[in-house]
């Protein structure tokens, strides 16, 4: 039996959605034009939903255009359909690099990137839900397999947490890459597009990190950045040509640790080369 408060809440929810759809008409129209697999109630199985993504886009687009003033090079390297893995460097204490990359691809390539998060992210209240609505998925092999089989675009930061939390003096020196993404690329014959993100390293220099006893929500530690908000550095996103790691390999080679390691190393070298080119080309941290 429906209660009055519940009916009122439901009505408010509907009004809120209608209002949000009106306010966010432009981004919503844009996001609705980006294909996704609706599982039946307007959400995909991982929780992505266009209205929330439109809200994220409306906020992020301002940051993208006016705060970080992102410049993008070679985004057309991303195939316009089919499964693709984007492998990028990760840095900056807080994952603004992921949000800028997501925004760039949505705006300029009209595809929905699925950022792959670390294991602890689904445990974080509010953040986990907000991220899921924008297309973020937990970084498990099972999830990634489903996405690749569905022909989706994965956005992976193979350095993981060690990348985003490295100290300022280690900037633009890539950490070791986790190799799971390379194995998936080999197994599912998926092209890997390397991405070098220049600018994020200087956005929030980390002063220290505070260990979190007991790892609540799986958080390894809390970073202490120099500034509370990121500095208005200019982002440069450099996309490389797709790497077809599986070419000239047999299907069973995805199980060979050495083959997988070499494939990942090839991607890492490509990302490092893009970073070096990006650093050479930029006029300064804020330019």
């Amino acid at each position, binding site marked *: *039996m*429906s*209660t009055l*408060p*519940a*009916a009122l*809440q*439901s009505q408010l*929810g509907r009004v809120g959605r209608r209002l949000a759809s009106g306010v966010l008409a432009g981004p919503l129209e844009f996001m609705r034009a980006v294909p996704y697999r609706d*599982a*039946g*109630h307007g*959400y995909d*199985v*991982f*929780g992505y939903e266009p209205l929330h993504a439109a809200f994220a886009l409306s906020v992020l687009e301002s940051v993208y255009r006016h705060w970080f003033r992102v410049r993008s090079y070679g985004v057309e390297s991303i195939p316009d359909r089919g499964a693709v893995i984007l492998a990028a460097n990760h840095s900056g204490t807080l994952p603004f690099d992921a949000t800028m990359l997501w925004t760039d691809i949505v705006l300029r390539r009209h595809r929905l990137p699925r950022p792959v998060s670390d*294991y*602890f*992210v*689904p*445990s*974080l*209240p*509010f*953040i*986990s*839900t907000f991220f*899921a609505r924008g297309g973020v*998925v*937990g970084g*498990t*092999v*099972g*999830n990634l397999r*489903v996405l690749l089989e569905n022909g989706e675009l994965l956005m992976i930061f193979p350095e993981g947490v060690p990348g985003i939390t490295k100290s300022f003096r280690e900037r633009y020196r890539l950490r070791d890459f986790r190799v799971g993404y390379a194995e998936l690329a080999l197994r599912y014959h998926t092209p890997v597009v390397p991405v070098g993100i220049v600018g994020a390293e200087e956005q929030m220099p980390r002063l220290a990190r505070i260990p979190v006893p007991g790892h609540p929500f*799986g958080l390894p530690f809390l970073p202490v950045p120099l500034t509370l908000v990121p500095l208005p550095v200019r982002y440069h996103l450099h996309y490389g040509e797709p790497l077809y790691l599986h070419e000239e390999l047999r299907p069973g080679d995805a199980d060979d640790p050495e083959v997988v390691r070499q494939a990942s190393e090839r991607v890492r070298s490509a990302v490092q080369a893009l970073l070096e080119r990006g650093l050479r080309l930029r006029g300064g941290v804020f330019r």
Partner: protein
Amino acid sequence: MLGASTPLGERLCAALLADPELRAVLAVTREPREQTHLPEDPRLTWSQVDITHARPVHDLLFGRVRELEVDVVVHLAMHRANDFGARVHVQNVESLRWLLAQADRHPTLRRLVLRSYGEVYRLEPDLPSVITEDHPLELSPEAPQWVRDRVEADLLACTRMGIASGLEVAVLRCAEVLGPAEGSQLYDYLSAPVCLRSAGFDPMLNVLSLEDATEALRRAVYAGGTQGIFNIPGADTLPLTRCIRLAGRLDVPVPGPLLAPIYELRRRLRGAQFSYRLNRGRFHFAAVLDGAHARQVLGYTPHHPVAWQAGLR
């Protein structure tokens, strides 16, 4: 059919009897015939058996089952209420063990279809949100008996695949059937006018309608020659908050640690079934069954969404 008086059992009886080629359905219930809603059909035989004792199970198998030359057993007789204790365990697990042991030397039985549960899977942040049949099971010793019994029964059936001579085993791990008297924890949760949930979490759920569950079981009955584990997802994949709204309930987010004691109090005071402890995982982390195997082998695809308002009265 064991557990024929459950809503699913009654529907499945009707669905099977719709096949004119089918010679007989033996409906086994714990309740007297007049308390059931089994269809009237000359091919339906009813039998009242208490499966919590070994002797009646034996006598059923080597009595009516043999007489009617029953070749497929559908097991739906898992204890539905959120109770615990030795007797519940016997019904959930030991009765199946007796059945499997005796099926080995039974002259007519050739197939067992076990209705299992999506709740047997372990839900953790580092595990996939889309659950395939090889997903880890909830084997934690801290898991409530409700879950442990289901896991044990499921594994018991799985271990017999290919071992019991001539007996095919199909284990159907069904998403939650959102309906009354089906032992659905979510149904009980949504029966309250106010639904509390952990603030900051709105995981994706998948729920199954009675129609689709019936169809999946019917297909499994007829899928002779195949055995294995099959996830049976429903047609509704949606966030928890949307479930609550569709059910016409008030959605109230509260700090997570408060939920277990509040719902335990509700259970004790109101005799409710829902236990937050039992559902903690899926109230935090997305869990959607992947039905690819059932689609490929059984030809099952969910087509019937839950009738939200009608189904939750």
